[in-house]
């Protein structure tokens, strides 16, 4: 089972100066930076997924969040995705480069933002090894399997569009001489309808299916979907799980003949999750999580800046507390400060992230106590000291500090590598 990471320009400056919080002088964004697969050995994933909607503005969608500039999109198309992602050469030979449309970007739109012709051209020019036909997400998955007549017209239309696109898409890919392996996207409103879609895609000639719409689903619902699909398709037909948010429960999915799945969660959780920011392999073969220690930059953090602008906080005062928290955490790491003193300094600064949020002192005190307990656990266990991944070896305690993209993304890369190792063990364990 291959683990693909869905990249959205996630690179870090290898020469970042953590003490002064500066990029290395002369650093050029992207060119001086490194991707996780360049930074870490072994690479923390088996392939990369790139969404077209991250590269190209989704037509007619005003809110579409494109990560690539025009010049980066143009270079990606000129040089190919492999060269752009610096994911080539013998080290990454045979790795999967999967293109998809990033259907989330146009989910509100009546039809997909890209036509099959445009998508085939894009995948071909970018040189993907695999590409998914433009689909249209159906969100609600009803495990009671309502009939086609029982669902609303918009859902039926999304179902039909996805299949009609897949037919056109496959024809075009064949006409172009199969420059990449096409994947048929499965969308449906129930396990049964998804199985029907899978069956029809297989009949069109697809040998590899991508199951969509899984993001909001619970583990049991995903299992119900996969069971229904597997019953309707050939055993040799391959399956990819799109945006598989339940990556942690992967051990429950080894029996479904899944060839690949993609997830961003190990990296994203490093800085989006409330408390599970740092991954560690537990002794029982399961993943454990730690909260990162939040010491944001006083004059850059949006929340603190708001307080400063309103006059609730003084910038100079915050800067002093911020500095003290950083000094204490680093001293603690060297063994030059106690866990108690460090926790005090961290929480003394942390309180400003909550004060002024209008929830009232009682709520805030409660939230602070919760955070203090989580931070205390992180401080006590010092998980960064046990890890020998390239990130933890390189920057030590900085990896656990929740502050600026260079720390947060590195922590994400660490998580990817812990996760990837965990996945290999899981697969071996069940093989």
């Amino acid at each position, binding site marked *: 089972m291959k683990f693909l990471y869905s990249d959205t320009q996630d690179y870090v400056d290898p020469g970042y100066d953590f003490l002064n919080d*500066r990029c290395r*002088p*002369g650093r*050029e964004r992207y*060119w001086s930076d490194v991707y996780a697969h360049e930074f870490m050995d072994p690479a923390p994933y088996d392939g990369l997924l790139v969404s077209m909607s991250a590269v*190209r*503005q989704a*037509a*007619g969608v005003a809110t579409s969040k494109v990560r690539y500039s*025009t*010049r*980066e*999109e*143009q*270079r990606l*198309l*000129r*040089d190919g995705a492999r060269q752009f992602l610096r994911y080539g050469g013998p080290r990454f030979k045979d790795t999967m480069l999967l293109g998809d449309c990033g259907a989330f970007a146009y989910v509100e739109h009546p039809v997909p933002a890209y*036509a099959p012709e445009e998508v085939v*051209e894009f995948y071909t*020019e970018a040189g993907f090894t695999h590409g998914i036909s433009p689909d249209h997400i159906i969100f609600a998955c009803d495990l009671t399997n309502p009939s086609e007549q029982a669902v609303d017209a918009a859902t039926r239309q999304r179902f039909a569009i996805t299949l009609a696109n897949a037919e056109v898409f496959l024809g075009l890919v064949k006409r172009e001489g199969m420059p990449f392996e096409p994947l048929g996207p499965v969308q449906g409103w129930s396990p049964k309808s998804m199985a029907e879609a899978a069956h029809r895609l297989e009949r069109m000639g697809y040998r590899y299916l991508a199951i969509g719409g899984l993001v909001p689903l619970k583990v049991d619902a995903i299992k119900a979907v996969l069971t229904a699909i597997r019953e309707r398709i050939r055993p040799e037909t391959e399956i990819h799980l799109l945006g598989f948010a339940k990556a942690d429960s992967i051990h429950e999915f080894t029996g479904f003949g899944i060839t690949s799945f993609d997830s961003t969660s190990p990296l994203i959780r490093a800085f989006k999750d409330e408390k599970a920011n740092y991954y560690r392999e537990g002794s029982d073969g399961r993943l454990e999580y730690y909260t990162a220690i939040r010491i944001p*930059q006083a*004059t*850059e953090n949006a929340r603190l*800046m708001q307080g*400063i*602008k*309103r*006059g*609730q906080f*003084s*910038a*100079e005062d915050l800067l002093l507390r911020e500095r003290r928290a950083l000094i204490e955490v680093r001293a603690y790491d060297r063994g030059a400060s106690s866990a108690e003193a460090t926790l005090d300094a961290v929480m003394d600064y942390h309180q400003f992230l909550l004060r002024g949020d209008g929830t009232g002192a009682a709520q805030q005190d409660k939230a602070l106590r919760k955070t203090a307990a989580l931070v205390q656990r992180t401080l006590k266990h010092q998980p960064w000291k046990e890890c020998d991944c390239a990130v933890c070896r390189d920057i030590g305690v900085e990896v656990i500090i929740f502050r600026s993209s260079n720390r947060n993304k590195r922590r994400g890369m660490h998580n990817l590598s812990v996760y990837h190792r965990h996945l290999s063990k899981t697969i071996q364990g069940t093989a």
Partner: protein
Amino acid sequence: MTTYRFTAVRAQQAPGHDVFVFAAHPADVLSFAAIERVARTDDGQLKGFQRHQVASHIRDIRDYLTREDALLPNAVIIAFIEGVTVKDLSDGLVQVQIDVTQDSRPGFVVDGQQRLTALSGINKPEFQVFVSAVICKDYNELRQQFVLINNTRPLPKTLIYELLPNVEGLPERFTQRKFSARIVDMLNFTRGSSLHGEVRQHTNPTGMISDTAMQRLIMNSASDGAIRSLMRFDDREERAFQLVSEFFHAVARVYGSAWYGMAPRFSRLRHGAGIVAMGFVMDHLHSLEGAKERGQFEPGLRLLAPHTAWTSGQWPLEAWDTRPWNGIQNTPSDIDLLTRYLVSSLKKALRKPRRIANG
């Protein structure tokens, strides 16, 4: 209570007002003067006046001031209402005494807060700054001084860009801009350049092509395109200049009537959007066809010509987005659309003759 004493020079200005200047360490300045940021009291009253810290600005200043040879000749301005006694010495000199009590600092930073913050964060114990001080009769007058002093007009960006090629030791973020400004200079003022005299600059107001659009073209190419491959050479400036100049020689030859003497409002080719988008056509022809000289750019541009609508007609940008020739504006999203349309039309056109050639 702490007392600071300085010998200062007094200037004769408005009667009844004391204005004087002295040298002090930044840390001392911050202990006798407060930065009162603008805010609201609980009952909605405005207090303070200073804006918040701008982290990137402070970083730029800090980068510069960390250098051994850094100078800061302009003074920070501090206003006092009370807490200061001024005693006449002689020859315009005065003895200034500032009393700081436990809970309040008598001075207010009126100008220079970012500089003081930057200095307070670096280890330069010997470094002094000039303090220009004014004594106001009340807080309102102090706020008035703040507005008057800070209500200056920043230099126009285009003038700064034109000065850039000749200025050393600037913050990092200027270096890309500096390189492109230098190439635009060469394109505009070198005899034989395809853009000789064509670019509008402060010193060339009759030029018709926007200098910022040309800079954008060069910055795009230097970071992700053809010019990037030239950066490793010592004579990269000359090579970059030649490449762009050659490309526009070819453009002029192929699209003559849309090019020669045309104002941007009559030809989209000379408009910011057209210039920036054509930069990507240049990068594409260089990268995929190896074009370097005008004769090598021309065939591709000729293939592209039937798909363009620089001065009349319509742009079929997407299946559902057809626009009149002048319906493209100088916005990032329009430039993006035009770029994609031009490059993909070019690619298709380049593909066709090859298919025929390959039988």
